């Protein structure tokens, strides 16, 4: 690349401090035309803040931004878009009740005609291999398709820099591969891409250069195609990546949690109906449920935890006893513990102390006598949980909302595990959790299984599932695939199944393709 071309975007000594934390501290970064540049770092490293600064959402405290060589003050996202910067956020911002064309038209200046917009969408979609129907309503689209709409919306302007925030966290492996093809095509046309991720394999496969952030500072820059993932991980977390110890399955334990023909209608308009879900979870094993979010996981978890009860008592059996009609409290009494996806507001009450949050589900551990609270027991349990699960916090009196996501998750996991459950259900156990805590949590789940507990893990992260699970099953459109031993399947097979295409499920596939590129 010599002589070096003029960088499209240059950041010099960017600093941004929030009341409690310095999010960015003296960050330098440059992005060349046509380059796919990775921004690599753990949660909380400052990646998102930096991107919001580039996109004009947040103003830096100090430092300089150069756009095609000229200093610029990015006043607002509208200003950024005028310059040709587009951003696709992790959480989409589309109106579900509108069509694709209407959603895109809303983002355009003036009042373009919908037919015109639809024509332009089709032209661009074809060029970049992103099939999407401009007349389809957004709520009928898969997550991968919605992401395409977000990207298309950026591409309708004269795009020079596309920022993508953890785009593959919501995609099947196949959909991710299709996205990479699109991004490469875009880069070949001269568009720069800033690609935020903590997934090293992806960055190695896709990006030309990488800048690594840790705790708000640049800790390294490299060519990911040359560097090993271990070396990049060291730059990212400051030490070697720890790994989990996994012993082989102890064999056939007794059934602890069984679903037999479990069906449940959605409770929300855009939810998913559960259809004829059956599985058996045995003592001493980890069963993983893979799937893209929104395919019935929420409904299944609510049904299993007892937050939603069923009409058919026999549809769920806990330790051999029917409990479909039993509520959450009764199931907990029978030995079920549950770590849900939402930590604040469901698994923990943000404004309450850790001690009060321990009481939430662990009150059967001798914390209540004659209806009155025993604060010493509560305090001792909370301390035990904090110590055993390495929760970094200000002690039992610290408010739940003052903990980082990873530490709160360790606390919640600890609270449930210390109740010695017969069955533990964990949803997205390491979602948004830093690498070190993730390994800790996975190891805790494995230890629990080794101690004879039946563990059910629902996760979107295939790597995680393959790392800890004994057996795997896929949920798609409210149905379960056949169960496979983890050792006898692979990412490709599970990835295909995630779109609902497993061998004996031909009737599940609908005309609209829910995954990536092979629609036509």
């Amino acid at each position, binding site marked *: 690349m010599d002589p070096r071309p003029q960088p499209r975007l240059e950041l010099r000594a960017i600093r941004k401090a929030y*009341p*409690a934390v310095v999010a960015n501290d003296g960050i330098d970064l440059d992005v060349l035309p046509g380059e796919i540049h990775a921004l690599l770092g753990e949660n909380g490293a400052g990646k998102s803040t930096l991107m*919001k600064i580039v996109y*004009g*959402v*947040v*103003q830096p405290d100090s430092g300089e931004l150069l756009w095609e060589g000229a200093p610029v003050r990015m*006043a*607002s*996202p*509208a*200003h950024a*878009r005028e310059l040709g910067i587009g951003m696709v*956020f*992790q*959480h989409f*911002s589309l109106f579900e009740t509108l069509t694709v064309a209407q959603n895109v038209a*809303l*983002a355009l200046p003036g009042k373009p005609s919908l037919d015109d917009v639809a024509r332009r969408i089709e032209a661009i979609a074809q060029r970049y291999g992103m099939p999407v129907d401009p007349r389809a309503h957004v709520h009928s689209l898969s997550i991968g398709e919605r992401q395409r709409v977000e990207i298309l*919306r950026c591409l309708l302007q004269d795009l020079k820099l596309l920022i993508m925030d953890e785009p593959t966290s919501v995609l099947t492996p196949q959909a991710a591969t299709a996205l990479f093809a699109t991004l490469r095509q875009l880069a070949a046309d001269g568009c720069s891409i800033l690609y935020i991720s903590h997934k090293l394999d992806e960055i190695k496969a896709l990006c030309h250069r990488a800048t690594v952030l840790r705790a708000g500072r640049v800790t390294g820059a490299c060519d990911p195609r040359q560097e090993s993932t271990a070396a990049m991980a060291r730059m990212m977390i400051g030490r070697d990546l720890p790994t989990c110890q996994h012993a082989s399955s102890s064999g056939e334990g007794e059934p602890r949690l069984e679903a037999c023909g479990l069906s449940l209608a959605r409770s929300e308009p855009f939810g998913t109906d559960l259809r004829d879900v059956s599985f058996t979870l045995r003592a001493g094993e980890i069963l993983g449920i893979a799937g893209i979010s929104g395919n019935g996981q929420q409904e299944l978890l609510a049904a299993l*935890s*007892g*937050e939603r009860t069923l009409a058919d008592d026999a549809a769920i059996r806990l330790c051999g006893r029917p409990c479909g009609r039993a*509520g*959450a*409290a*009764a*199931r*907990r009494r029978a030995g079920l513990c*549950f770590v*849900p996806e*939402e930590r604040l*507001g*469901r*698994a*923990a*009450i*943000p*404004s*309450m102390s850790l001690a*009060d949050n321990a*009481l*939430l*589900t662990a*009150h059967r551990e001798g914390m*209540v006598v004659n*209806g*009155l*609270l025993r604060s010493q027991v509560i305090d001792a349990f909370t301390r035990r949980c904090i110590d055993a699960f390495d929760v970094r916090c200000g002690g039992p009196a610290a408010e739940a909302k003052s903990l980082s996501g990873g530490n709160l998750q360790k606390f919640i996991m600890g609270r449930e595990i210390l109740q010695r459950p017969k069955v533990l259900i964990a949803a997205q156990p390491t979602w948004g959790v830093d690498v070190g805590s993730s390994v800790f949590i996975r190891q805790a789940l494995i230890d629990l299984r080794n101690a004879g507990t039946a563990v059910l893990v629902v996760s979107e992260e295939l790597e995680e599932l393959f790392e800890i699970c004994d057996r795997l099953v896929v949920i798609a459109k409210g149905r379960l695939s056949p169960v496979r031993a983890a050792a006898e399947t692979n990412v490709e097979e599970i990835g295909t199944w995630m779109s609902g295409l497993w061998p004996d499920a031909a009737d599940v596939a609908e005309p609209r393709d829910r995954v990536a590129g092979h629609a036509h």
Partner: protein
Amino acid sequence: MWPNRGIAWQVMRISLEPRVAPSRAMRWASPLVAVALTMLLGVVLFAALGKDPLAGLHAFFIAPIDSVNGVAELLIKASPLTIIAIGLAVGFRGNVWNIGAEGQLVVGAIAAGWVALQPALAESALTLPAMIVAGALGGMAWAAIPAWLRTRFNANEILVSLMLTYVAQLLLNYLVFGPWRDPQGFNAPQSPLFPEAAMLPILIEGTRLNASVLLTLTAVAVGWVFLSRSFPGYQTRVSGLSGAAARYAGFSERRTVWVGMLAGGAAAGLAGVGEAAGTLGQLLPSLSPGYGFIAIIVAFVGRLHPVGILFAGLLMSLLYLGGDSAQISMGLPAAAAALFQGALLFFLLGTDVLVNYRVRVRRSATTASAQGAA
């Protein structure tokens, strides 16, 4: 929330930013700051009305309580406000919005009055305990209607409890204008006077201070234990803070509604007993000067904490007495008392906001889009 529709403008922007760690000391001091600001406003107000500010403050805040009798009157007024507010706080903590304490008070008084007017009980030592129980049950029965409709049909308890207040008032009117009218009352709408055995004993001779304040003090203690030290109280607080967390833990929403409504009903019913068997000694259409509604303010000024509510009840009572006193001694308009109450509430809420947030003023371009919050 539309991200690609950012509209930039150059303005002076005043924004409230949450404080990272609100000061604990300021959290406790903010009610005092609010009282001080209310007094400051009083000084300005009195001066603007052409009165001596110091005399005005004296008439408002000192004169009502510079005698034993004054203090007794203060406690008599604070007692129903406090006990009702504690009962309501149990519901409010659990997001159960009982607005009908006034009606529950009336029904509690009617139930106690019925016991008091039974000829067979005229001399009995059991009369008063029976009245207290009847009053609490009466209030609970009236509160059970919105509780049942809410848990059975998901009817809004705010509307139902509020409307039942008018039903209760009309029921009282019917009784004192009709079947329970005092035959010797010169046709006045009132019940016969209760017998001596049906009256709450006077605590300080020469004043009207009666044993209803002991009921209130008991309620403060019970309310504190329930909310801070009991598991059902904890379940109520969890339900109020996060319905999803309560469902996750398996806490029953129905139970929270029942506990919250019945606690408010029982407390209001006891306040009704205190009015009927304490200061009045009979049933009148004007049984309560709106205690059930004012108690809602008291509950929030006291931050839904029993001890805070006790102080808030005393303060609110003082503002009432002070308003009367200032009217009489200085010829201030009756609206002045209401203005003081409003000002106090305003300053309390204002200082609360400033304890938790800080104001930032800056000139900057900003955007209408909200995607930064993602």
